[in-house]
């Protein structure tokens, strides 16, 4: 939800900021503070986006499943730096996933957002807000059904994923470090029938400022 009252950027005339103009409170509020808030609301990035061009032959799947109550990893993204809100909570991620079952049995593609290295913990906890289950029993490829479109990491996730990453302060400059919270999107398989495999053919995750 927007923190800017107009839920949008207000265009303005650059001459309002001329040196001969007094800096009016209205200018500071509407053109600076509120526009900045809107731009920050829309600062979320697309963090995962792919769709197989040949879903029936080019897909990702899991190791052999031996237990129907255990999630098996299908795919995990590279870590990406999450956008942290004012309270230290990461922006929620709007997600979607595509795939199909190898046989007509109920299967679940469990999408998990978690600090790098922590996805298994949440994969085993379907009620956590870091998890959205996408379900199907279809053997035809397609985007999957899910009750919720958002996954939400917590402030403790943000702390857990925080890294001081070596970088530089300018082109050809000195070494410095920068702090960033790194997280991944992973997809896990759950099947109602041990002989039914899951075929993952697409994943999408984009940060959104949320409510």
């Amino acid at each position: 939800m927007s923190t800017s009252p107009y839920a949008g950027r207000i265009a303005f005339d650059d001459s309002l900021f001329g040196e001969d103009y007094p800096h009016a409170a209205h200018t500071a509020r509407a053109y600076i503070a509120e526009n900045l808030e809107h731009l920050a609301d829309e600062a979320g990035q697309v963090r995962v986006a792919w769709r197989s061009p040949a879903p029936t032959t080019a897909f990702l799947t899991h190791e052999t499943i031996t237990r129907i109550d255990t999630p098996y990893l299908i795919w995990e993204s590279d870590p990406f730096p999450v956008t942290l809100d004012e309270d230290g909570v990461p922006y929620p991620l709007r997600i979607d996933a595509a795939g199909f079952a190898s046989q007509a049995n109920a299967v679940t593609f469990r999408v998990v957002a978690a600090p790098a290295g922590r996805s298994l913990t949440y994969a085993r906890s379907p009620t956590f807000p870091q998890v959205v289950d996408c379900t199907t029993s279809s053997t035809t490829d397609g985007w999957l059904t899910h009750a919720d479109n958002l996954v939400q990491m917590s402030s403790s996730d943000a702390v857990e994923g925080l890294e001081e990453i070596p970088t530089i302060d300018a082109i050809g400059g000195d070494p410095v470090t920068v702090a960033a919270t790194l997280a991944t999107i992973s997809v896990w398989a759950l099947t109602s029938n041990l002989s039914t495999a899951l075929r993952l053919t697409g994943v999408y995750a984009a940060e959104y400022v949320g409510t």
Partner: protein
Amino acid sequence: MSATVAVRRPTARPDDILVAAPVRALTGLESAKLGNWLLGRGAQLIPPYAPLTTVTATSELHYQFRVRPRYQALQRVWGFRLRAASPMEVTIEVPSGATAITAPVSTRRDTVHSFRIVETLGSQSDTEAEITCAIAPTSTTSLTIEGISCYEMPRGTLAVGGSDLGTELAVYVVGQPIKATLYDSIRAATSDPLVIGRRVSLSQWSVPATVAGATSTAHAKATVGTGSYETIYSGLPVLTRKDAPSATTGLVTCKMLAWVSGGSADLRLNSSVHGASTAVNITNTSPAWSGAITLSVDCEDLSTADGLQGAVFDRLTPEMRKNVSGTCRVAAVSIWEA
């Protein structure tokens, strides 16, 4: 000089600014911090994707992407996830042609890890450009590239003013006036939505059009017929940022790495909500980036819990059509906010 970039989002506190009352230096300071945060946190250049390229040869695989980066970026962080039939190594170059780095490849799904390589740029630029990487297996073991990604390294501090547009924080002093010039950088950033916070990549898909230095048809998506549009991949969600308060759409730009065996072909985008774009025609017989394909798609609706308009994903499908005989091939589709 300290145009520092916060880790968490600061707030500009517009409610603290009252008409007919002077703007407090601390309020101006918060705006400046938010401006620096927006400019300095970096963009996702290649959202993690699964190329699903499987090879059994040691030939070098060349991946190409089209991006319009942010000026503030100094380094790019690349990530690679690879899986092999038996333990092996690959060499990776970022960009293609740079000194190769050797990376181990595991075999089990649970032990596939992300191999991270940092690319330091020679200069800053926000000009649209191609970025590349190359992967060369060191054995003929079956190898699948399961993930490639790239993001701009966040900045800890920005240069004050100039093209970095950092705002000096130390000049907001209690009791002192806020001079108009203190707002120069923020004003420049907020007056152009493409300068600040741009989604550099809405999606990136690339497979090798060049293998071992020569054009290859092994991995590109090819037309199977002529005269009708064919799907390159189907229905990836897309939402741009919302700009003006009344906006319901945003413009995306797409370029495809494509070529034909002869004659011509058409390339376009198809939105599930807004229909098809104007097509771009190609006649090149070796891989080259197409002209820009533009299309208005849904932007986020900030009044809804998930940003979707009408609880429906706008889904974007890149398409190609070979005119008359022959084959059209597409090896990369890059889509970014215009």
